[in-house]
Structures are given as C-alpha cells and as structure tokens.
C-alpha cells in the first residue's frame, strides 16, 4: 500500500463527508443502473439476437442507464478526490461496506427485490466482513 504521506490528513467530518458523498452517489447510480438492466431483459439474449452493437445500443439508449451513469460518474470523481486525501485502505472498505447497506435497502424499496432473511444476513455479513478486512 502506498502511503499518502505527503498529504495532510483530513478532519473526521471532512473524511465522513467525502465517504458519504461516494456512498450516496454510487448507491443512487447502482440502483438506477440495476433498474435499467432489469427493464431490458437478459443482455446475453439481446447480444445473441442483435449482436454486440445492438446490445450496446440497447444499454446506452436507456434513460435510466444514462441517469445511473451520471451518478456513477459523480461517485467516481468523488472517489478520486477522496483517494487524493486518504488511503485506499480506508476509503475503499468504508465506501464499499456502507454502499452495500444502502444498496440492499434501495433494492428492496425501489427495485422490489425479494430481500429475504438469507439476503439480509448476507448483506450484513459482507458489510462486517469488508470492514474487518480493512484492519
């Protein structure tokens, strides 16, 4: 791991704000994208029927997908900004584990996925696991 030694450490609230921005924007982007892909049907089938170009066209012409990409782009530049001020070993796991929780909640309420006990447990285990890996 390369140390960000030349950088001044951000305060707790600055770090929280940077991570919260990544979490909220990436979660919004992922749920919008998932909604777009769900509405499209099996992409492998689309590719088999109308080729790679057809599959790409089907994806990029979806308004939900474009909205999702917008939020993912904001999340990406938030991540670049945060990585410039903090180590990946902090930003990566923190953003990943929290995004998992917000994604699971959003998948239940916005995508109407059947988030049963098995999936809630899995989401919680992954969240704790990803956090533990940061130690």
């Amino acid at each position: 791991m390369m140390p960000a030694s030349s950088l001044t450490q951000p305060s707790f609230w600055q770090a929280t704000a940077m991570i919260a921005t990544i979490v909220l924007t990436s979660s919004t982007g992922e749920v919008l994208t998932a909604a777009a892909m769900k509405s499209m049907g099996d992409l492998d089938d689309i590719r088999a029927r109308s080729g790679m170009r057809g599959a790409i066209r089907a994806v990029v012409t979806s308004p939900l997908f474009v909205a999702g990409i917008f939020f993912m782009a904001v999340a990406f530049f938030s991540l670049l900004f945060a990585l410039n001020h903090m180590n990946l070993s902090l930003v990566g796991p923190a953003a990943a584990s929290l995004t998992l929780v917000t994604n699971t909640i959003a998948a239940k309420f916005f995508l109407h996925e059947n988030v049963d006990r098995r999936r809630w447990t899995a989401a919680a285990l992954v969240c704790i696991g990803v956090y533990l890996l940061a130690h």
Partner: protein
Amino acid sequence: MAHHRLTVQQYLILAFVSVGVPLGDASLSRGMTSLPAISLAHPLTLIAAVFTPWIALGILLLIGYFASYLTALSWADLTFVMPATALGNVFVVLLAYFWLHDKVSPLRWMGVVLITVAVGFVAQGPISTTPPLNLPDPVDKAEDPPRNDALERDSVVKEQMR
C-alpha cells in the same frame, strides 16, 4: 426465478465482476497517491489525472468490470450480484497471503470467512426474484398490433352480435 442454474459464461462474468474492482482500484490508488495534492479550488486537475498511465489502466479495468456487471444485472438481482462483487476483497487477501506472503491478521481472516459465507448464502437462493420486464423488441412490436387489432375487432363484432 427465471433460471436457477448459472451457465459457464455467467460464472465467468461473475468472476470478472469480483476481480475487476480490486485490480482497477489498486491502479487508481497507485496513480492518485503519486500525484500532488488536488484541492477543490482546481477540480480540473482531476480530469488531467485521467490521462496518467496508472489511472488510465485503472479506468480500463473498471470499464471491463462494468460491462460484466451490467450483463450480470440483466439476469440477476442487485442483491445477488453485490456479494459477488464483495468476493473481490477475499481474492485480494488470498493473493496477498499466498503470492506476496503478506501476514494476514486473524480479524482479516474473519472478514474473509464472513464474506465467503455470505456469498454461499446468496448463491443458495434464487438468482432473480423480480419478473424480467421483457419489452418486446421493434420486430415483435411490428407484428403484434395487427393481431391485437384483429382480436379487438373480433370482440367488437361479438359484442355487436350480442
């Protein structure tokens, strides 16, 4: 529950969903930490960072990951694909331990176990719990309306006959 069993191709896609992010993020981190500090006052320097080699490689890996991720989302739930993404972290630890001979603390091993168990949990369940909103493609649309019209006309005729 469109299809419960994954094809080999679908397993490969999920595998790249797992390893694409850690490889891409590591490249991004390597690129960004070697740059001087960027302040909010000059956000355009972030754009310039995109064209440095490590950042560019990181972006290429993340694009490959994203294509796999989108494909996976088209046949699987978001809550099914997410644990697969988390498996990438386990992959990083295993690589660090077996290849780089890094020391891995007991807490990290605990994290590896928790994520692996979680993936096992989700993999036991259905791949998709929402019916695919399969929109008919343009060819089908062109064929469908006359049939529907005919049916409607039939029912109208039947109504009139009554």
